[in-house]
Every structure is written in C-alpha cells, then in structure tokens.
C-alpha cells in the first residue's frame, strides 16, 4: 500500500498569515481556524509531494529533534487538520 502524501485542500480555503500564525476561512463550512506558528509551518508543507515519514524527517531537521519524536505529533496534527476538513481526502494508505 502506498504511503499517504497529505495535501491541503486546493479550493474553498482562504488562508491569511500574520506574524507566523495562519487564520483560515473555509468557504464550504463557514468555519474559521487559527493555527499557532508550528501548525502554520506544517500546514505550509502539505503540498501532496511528501510522505508523513519524509515530512517528519524534514521537520525534525529544522527543529533539531529526532524524527521518531516528531512523527507521532505530526500524525496527531494531521488528524486534526483532516477532522477540520482542511486536507484533501486521503486516496492511498491514509
């Protein structure tokens, strides 16, 4: 089974970034979301080209932390993004 490559929804979201924090308006649900700086960085990386493991590795390097510590936190954050409807539906592997 192919690994998931999470991608932010390409339509219906307006994202504004102020001082490293994103505020997102979802046209389809009318909901607003406010991301802290770390979540904003992750959100910006979700372009559908990297697997969760690759993302964990990149983030771990950037923050100087072991990837095995990052990956569970990243998965938890992705679950929250997905639950909020901010990601394209997973098409492979989940």
């Amino acid at each position, binding site marked *: 089974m192919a690994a998931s490559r999470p991608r932010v929804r390409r339509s219906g*979201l*307006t994202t*504004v*970034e*102020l*001082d*490293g*924090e*994103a*505020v997102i*308006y979802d*046209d389809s649900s*009318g909901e*607003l*979301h*406010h*991301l802290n700086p770390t979540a904003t960085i992750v959100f910006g990386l979700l372009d559908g080209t990297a697997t969760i493991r690759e993302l964990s590795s990149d983030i771990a390097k950037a923050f100087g932390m072991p990837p095995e510590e990052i990956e569970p936190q990243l998965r938890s954050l992705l679950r929250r993004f997905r639950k909020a409807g901010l990601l394209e539906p997973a098409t492979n592997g989940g």
Partner: protein
Amino acid sequence: MQLGEIRVGVRATTESFGTWLDSTLAPYLSSHASDPHYSVVLPEGAGSPGRRLSVLYKGTITIARTFSRRTIARVLLAELESVGLATRDDAIYLNGSIARGDGGVALIPAALVHHITRLRRQLERARLQISPLLSIAVDPSNGRVVPVAPRLATPPGALDRLEDAGALTNGSTELFVDEPLDVDVVCRLGDVVGPPTSPLSRGAALRELAGETLNLGTLGGAALEGLAKLVAGTRCVSLGGDDARVVIESLAASLGTSPGGGRA
C-alpha cells in the same frame, strides 16, 4: 415597521419622538402590529439632570444611555440599518465599536460599550471617547474603519429636525465614525479572572474579529483578507477583569492615555 423581510417594532415614550420616527421612517411603516424590539425611553419636560437621560433598549438590554436625543436617534437608525448588514458586500461589517484616546483609536468589542459607558466621569477622566454604535464598517481594500453607508431611505436633515436635549451633554464620551479611521489598537475581551491587560497575537485578534463579522458568509475569504489589513498595523491586547473601572484604565493605558495627564 417592515425592513425588507424583517418586521421590527419600535416604541417611544414621548409623542414628539414618535412623530419624528414616523416621519423619518415613513416608507417602512407597517400596519401589522409588532412587539417592540426597540424601546426609546425619553424624559418629558424639565427635571433633574439625572432624569433627563434618554435610554435606548433592545429588548431588555440597554443599547445607549445619553442626555442627547440626537445620539439616541442616531444609534437607533444605526441599529435599524444593521438589520441588513449580513447580506451586504460593500464593506466588512462587524459587531464592534470604537474608542478614541490621546494615543489613537481602538477597536473594542460591542459587549464592552454599555459596560464602560455607564461610568461617564471615569471615561472623561481617562479622556476616552466611546462610540455608542455597536456595528462598524471596514473598507476591505485598506482595513480602515469607515462610516456605514446608509441604505435606509430617510429624509435629508432628519436628525436636525429632532428636538434635542443635547445642551446638557458635553458629548465627550460619544464618538461616531464620520470619516475613515486608522485603528491603532485592537482590544478583545479576556478572561474575567485574568490580568487586566495581556498581549494578544495578531493572528488570534484576526480570528476573533472574523468571528464577529456579520457578513462573513457573504464576503467569504475577502473579509478575512480585509480584516488582516486592519490588524496588521495594530497592537492587539486582551482586556481582562469584569470591573468596568479596571477595563477603562486598561483601555486608556492601551491607547497611551493616562488619567489627568498626557500620553503615558
């Protein structure tokens, strides 16, 4: 009266104000009975200054308390205008008001207005003016607060024809948006048991303002982008506590105003 699809009842306690209301809003008068949504309680004749206050209620909530009938009428017209703001797309409309001090202009939550305008003397000592309006317009192209463009068809000079008791007020605590304003400080409500003032990130302030936007569903993301222009150049603070005196002091300090003195 009938405002589009919405029927609104307005009750006034004096015949003169009722007559003014009927002539000013004649196109919207309806023969259908409607429970009062707004009540305008005005003093009759002479009395002690304390008994000359005019009060505007929305249901049982006090919207404005002032010695000036003109202010009461203006706030009432603004309230009636706000009935249609959610579907308008000519500006960003949000629940909120404006405070002005020596150090600039603050955008404040609508919920604060009545809470702090009861303390007129304290506001005067803090040299703060508070707008009695509870909804404001923001130009999405530059983030400036602008006057709400009226859609209600009222006769020119209607407010000037109102018998006014304004001579009793110095008007120092009342402020209207008659020209575009740059906002210097965005204030949001903090925790009632929290510190009087705490910094708020611009992202959090933007999220809160967007949540107070009446026509967010109409404008969509354009409202968020317009509000970001407003917030980007401001300081953002959270005002805590539930004591109105403390809130006024915190607001004055946020605007660089100190009671009885110059900029802090």
